[in-house]
């Protein structure tokens, strides 16, 4: 796919539409998704959503994907994603669910909780942590690139655990989106460990034949990534 306009319309616009549709179907408000791009890099960002409880706006939901083309210049690859819930009261984040494909000093997929806990600060101080009073300095690992939570998981957490308002049929849209995501991630995980995938298929009764050139190697770096 060499024509940038073709690529945009085949990949980026449907990706933006999918996110916008999910938010509209779950929360009931139309959401415009802005895509800014420059020289093969894209920032996909739905408009900030006011989250309500009992009809009162109390929090903001901000989602952003930073994407580029994969090595074949065919599919979008997510370099970084953020799902951030902030308090309208002080305009500061409460939770951040993040994925950073190139992360080195923190887990690739992680959650940051913006809060305070005296016992934790004490512990971090004793450990000579640089910012012991900032719980958000901790990056809680959540499964790496393949097994990280999807946007739908976060939305369900916000509705079911936190009590934010949603449409009555939100669960159907969340379930369908989560299934799409997990099927996509299963395919990616199979590419990381094809020998294991073949073994499981054989155990299920499939006949699986190795390629003539031998089994493709496992992606050890991806399997071992934090």
């Amino acid at each position, binding site marked *: 796919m060499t024509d940038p306009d073709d690529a945009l319309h085949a990949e980026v*616009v449907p990706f933006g539409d999918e996110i*916008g549709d999910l938010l509209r179907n779950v929360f009931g408000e139309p959401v*415009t*998704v*802005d895509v800014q*791009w420059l020289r093969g890099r894209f920032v996909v960002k739905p408009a900030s959503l006011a989250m309500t409880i009992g009809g009162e706006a109390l929090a903001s939901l901000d989602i952003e994907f930073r994407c580029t083309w994969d090595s074949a210049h065919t599919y979008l690859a997510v370099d970084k994603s953020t799902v951030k819930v902030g308090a309208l009261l002080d305009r500061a*984040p409460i939770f951040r669910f993040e994925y950073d494909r190139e992360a080195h000093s923190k887990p690739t997929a992680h959650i940051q909780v913006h809060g305070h806990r005296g016992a934790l600060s004490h512990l971090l101080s004793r450990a000579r942590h640089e910012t012991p009073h900032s719980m958000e300095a901790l990056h809680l690992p959540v499964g790496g690139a393949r097994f990280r939570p999807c946007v739908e998981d976060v939305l369900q957490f916000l509705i079911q655990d936190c009590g934010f308002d949603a449409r009555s049929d939100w669960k159907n849209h969340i379930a369908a989106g989560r299934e799409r995501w997990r099927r996509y991630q299963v395919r990616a995980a199979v590419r990381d460990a094809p020998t294991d995938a073949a073994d499981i298929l054989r155990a299920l009764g499939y006949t699986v034949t190795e390629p003539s050139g031998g089994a493709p190697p496992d992606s050890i770096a991806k399997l071992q990534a934090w």
Partner: protein
Amino acid sequence: MTRVTNVTEAQLLARRDELLAKHGLSLDEFAERARMYALVGDEWADWDELQSIAYLLRDD
């Protein structure tokens, strides 16, 4: 609805300057405040936007 904009480098640099001027900080000062988790209020959202700009400019 998805709205696509092919931004220019000049537009991104102008927006970056606007955000920095709003807070009276240099990019390095802003980055240091973020690194130390010392941001408050709108600084959080504006820091996220500065990082998005850096990504598009390949300054990340």
